């Protein structure tokens, strides 16, 4: 267990010291958010209606595009080779790296997104449900992104491929994330959607390490 914490701690310090980690993801998130009203027009009522959806999509894309950082560096400098020879199964290493990505990028973004909602005229009452849904959803986002990152780690132009592979997996997260963050919706709907989001997170918690480790092993061969 100590080993997993050591790996997460190291990855967090690395992402803070080098490459600005959350800074670039936040920059990307803001860029997506600014394009929206420019594309749709500054009409407040319209923006308010699409605000939750827009924030979710911006979150998905930000997490997705920062995903290739999860394994890339360790793959290139040979750390992954040695990590397969660690005292703990390689799946745990894959899980630890996905968790490090979640803590350093997805979670902070999931917390920042609702707070930046005012840019797209998100009603204040929608902030809390959106934050709750996004924090829960961000777990699944990072775990699924880890699979995409593992599958494309050896490829040179992996970025685009990650999107095509992972976006379909994001559809359920988006659907239930959105239905969980509708402010006016019937309470039953919100809790049900949150529960399903939690289920998706648990499923990905199991699938992601297995799939990522298998993919990484094939690249190390």
């Amino acid at each position, binding site marked *: 267990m100590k080993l997993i914490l050591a790996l997460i701690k190291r990855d967090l310090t690395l992402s803070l010291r080098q490459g600005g980690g959350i800074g670039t993801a936040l*920059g990307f998130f*803001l860029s997506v958010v*600014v394009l929206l009203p420019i594309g749709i027009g500054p009409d407040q009522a319209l923006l308010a209606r699409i605000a939750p959806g827009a924030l979710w999509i911006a979150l998905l894309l930000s997490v997705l595009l920062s995903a290739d950082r999860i394994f890339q560096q360790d793959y290139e400098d040979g750390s992954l080779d040695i990590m397969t020879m660690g005292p703990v199964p390689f799946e745990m290493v894959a899980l630890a790296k996905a968790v490090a990505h979640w803590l350093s990028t997805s979670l902070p973004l999931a917390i920042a997104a609702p707070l930046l909602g005012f840019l797209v005229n998100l009603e204040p009452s929608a902030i809390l449900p959106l934050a709750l849904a996004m924090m829960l959803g961000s777990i699944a986002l990072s775990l699924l992104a880890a699979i995409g990152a593992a599958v494309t780690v050896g490829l040179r132009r992996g970025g685009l491929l990650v999107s095509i592979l992972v976006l379909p997996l994001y559809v359920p997260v988006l659907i239930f994330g959105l239905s969980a963050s509708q402010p006016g919706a019937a309470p039953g709907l919100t809790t049900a959607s949150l529960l399903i989001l939690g289920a998706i997170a648990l499923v990905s918690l199991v699938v992601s390490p297995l799939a990522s480790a298998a993919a990484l092993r094939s690249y190390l061969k």
Partner: protein
Amino acid sequence: MQFLANPTRFLKIANAALPTVWAITIVLFAIGLYGALVTAPADYQQGETVRIMYVHVPAAWMALFVYTVMALASALALIFRHPLADVAAKTAAPIGAVFCFLSLATGSLWGKPMWGAWWVWDARLTSMFVLMLLYIGYMAIWAAIEEPHKAAMVARVVALVGFINIPIVKFSVDWWNSLHQPASVFRMGGPTIAGPMLWPLLVMGLAYTFLFLALHLTAMRAEIAARKIRQIQIAEIGDR
């Protein structure tokens, strides 16, 4: 080792000038704030909220001014290969970003009583928002590339490309804004400002400028020290 040679002249000037620059900054702020909060009359239309202008407008001016300084320094570095210019550009960015953020924040605080929404995609605020993204991009480049020399070369290009885009973004956003004529058009600067309302604005503007000068000189001094430390470390490592 060319870099180590010429900053000594700059350091001498900076060390000499800094105390006076700080003093001028403090005096200007005192006068400016007094003018803004006491002598300037409330606006007949907006009432007291017009006073937000005295922190919003100078911040917006500075956000643009600092990016211009960065672009100029980057051009100098590109043409004359002057490492001090890179240091100037790199250290100016965080200061400019804070001014830019403040102009956005105070703009939003000013907009709320006027437009009823914390954020309206008004032409000026939108362009300022894009400028904020340019700052973030520029600082991310320095953070992403470890080796200072390589980072400097890339950052020069990023600053210049950004600078060329500012008027283009400004023009297109203004045009876009006129296209979607928002219901309540609001002249950010209010009616033509006269006498007692105007001089505090100019003084605050000067105060912000001197504050930037003081911060920039200090930040450059620190960055030069950081680079010397890095070179000493490299030399130390090289010995064995």
